[in-house]
């Protein structure tokens, strides 16, 4: 980060158009006595180009909110506009198309296909987009270069370190040119140094590529890389505040 140009710093709160608008989003599991309101009437707007960290104790509803934002889950009630389009009522397959075209996922456990080369892992979303083989390989290579793994295309996940595996996963999230990358505890399985490398990578993607990033974490240190912090408690938004630019030591 020492090489970063100070004058290239974008504003702390980008005022692009809203990318994610949650209005009164509620997600209920079970019925009757066993009813659990995992997310309870959440209003949240995230604009294009933001880097948001979501924190909260376990069971606070942050993962459920992530799943709804990621179109993996549907809210029980409420409105969810993604890039201005109502998506709360979309079918399974419609949501799959949405994920394919606009979203990228990064998970705590990397979730790479085992015994499958890094290149093929990164190609995966492109297969479902219906791209040809050569084009897929080219785009996947470019994505791997971007995360600093050029030259390791043929490696299996088992031949890569944890940090490298997470880079492959980021390349996979990146390869479809998403508007939004959702990272669920991306550094949870990594030591501090690797964690910082991954966070630097995400920061760079946010700053240089303008990709909106929403990240769930339970580490204050990782949340500090974001520009905005949202804290969930008991299914509700407890805090929503900007993050001070990171210390000069970074």
């Amino acid at each position, binding site marked *: 980060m020492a090489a970063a140009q100070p004058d290239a710093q974008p504003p702390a709160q980008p005022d692009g158009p809203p990318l994610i608008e949650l209005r009164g989003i509620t997600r209920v599991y079970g019925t009757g006595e066993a009813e659990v309101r995992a997310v309870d009437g959440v209003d949240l707007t995230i604009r294009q180009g933001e880097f948001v960290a979501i924190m909260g104790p376990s069971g606070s509803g942050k993962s459920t909110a992530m*799943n709804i934002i*990621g179109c*993996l*889950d549907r809210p029980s009630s409420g409105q969810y506009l993604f890039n201005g389009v109502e998506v709360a009522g979309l079918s*399974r*397959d419609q949501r*799959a*198309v949405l*994920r*394919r*075209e606009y*979203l990228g*996922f990064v*998970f705590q456990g990397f*979730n*790479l*296909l085992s*015994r499958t080369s890094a290149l093929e892992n990164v190609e*995966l*979303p492109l*297969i*479902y*987009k*219906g791209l040809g*083989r050569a084009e897929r390989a080219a785009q996947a290579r470019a994505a791997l270069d971007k995360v600093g793994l050029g030259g390791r295309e043929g490696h299996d996940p088992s031949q890569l370190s944890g940090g490298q595996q997470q880079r492959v996963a980021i390349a*996979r999230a990146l390869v*479809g040119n998403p508007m939004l990358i959702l990272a669920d505890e991306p550094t949870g399985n990594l030591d501090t140094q690797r964690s910082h490398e991954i966070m630097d990578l995400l920061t760079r993607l946010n700053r240089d590529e303008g990709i909106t990033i929403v990240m769930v974490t339970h580490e204050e240190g990782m949340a500090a890389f974001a520009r905005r912090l949202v804290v969930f408690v008991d299914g509700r938004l407890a805090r929503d505040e900007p993050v001070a630019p990171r210390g000069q030591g970074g």
Partner: protein
Amino acid sequence: MLWETIRLALQAITRNALRSFLTVLGVVIGVAAVIAMVTVGQGSSEQVRASVASLGTNVLMVRPGKQMMGPGARESAPAFSLHDATALADLPAVQAVAPIVTTGQTAVFGNANVATSVTGTTADYLTVSNWTVLRGRAFAPGEEAAGAAVCILGESLRRALFGAADPTGAVIRLKTVSCQVIGLLQAKGAGAMGQDQDDFILMPIRAVQRRLLGMQDVSTLSVALAPGVSTARGIRDVEALLRERRRIGPGQEDNFSVLDMAQIASMLSSVNAVLTGLLSSVAAVSLLVGGIGIMNIMLVSVTERTREIGIRLAVGASAAQVMTQFLVEAVVLSVIGGVLGIALGLGLAFLAAQIMVIPFSPSLGVVALAFLFSGFVGVIFGFFPARRAARLDPIEALRYQ
């Protein structure tokens, strides 16, 4: 896209090669069994058809006694004579009659000593039974009348006695009779029941009667009907004449039997078809069991790869795409089993054909059918696991350990 999916399926299959092999073993065995059964069945049907043809069309076998087989009154019924043969030959419905008498004998030539059967008959036998003289000649009328000690050899017997040498002109010994070889028959191969048709000697019937048996009986009359004469009319005419000659009054039962050989052969062939069908359907059941094996492993595979499915769904695979992937995997698996099974089945059928001395006649239709059927098994038994995969909840699937 489909090719892509097939490549993906092959990858998944080779990733777990041993298990994939064991999985398809059921289909391999099922398909191999069906192919082997049908191919062997067809070979033996062909054999039957060929021996029907070798019997000649429209040939009647006339024997003394009521029945051909079983506990008949044949022993007590009087035998035919050569006069019966001449009288039958005069019927307008009859083209030729070969009187036949057979006896088991040991043929000796030099050091070779072979047990065989001797058929005493006339040159008409060659016409009636569709034999061709390959080398040498048939009996001359003079030889027939005089009962000359001449003989024509079947191919198997020739090989046993003479090996590679040319037998014509040689003299072999039967009992105390020295017999000159004047001809050699073209080989016919195995008969409808798998017997060797070429292991015999032809001699003029009078020679056999007088020199070998010391009697005048004729045991069988082989009657070729004239062209255009129906089998029914031929049987009627032959029966009428023989009843008259054997002085059987009206209302009395025949003491001889007339058999339509073509009929017997076609019956044999239909028995064959039924047997083939039965064995094939038993084999088809094992194919079904193989399909269930595939379903079982595909279900295990879906459970094992729950996380993988979750990843695929998360990056934007539609339910249909996931379903297609698993369905194609099941189909590719069972088609691989089908191909291996076809190869194995044809191999087994080839071996069986060698051992049973029947023609090896693989049918493209059956192979194609087995191939399609194995693909079909994949679709049927892959459908349920594939649907289960497609219906997984991506969140649950990603969380699955």
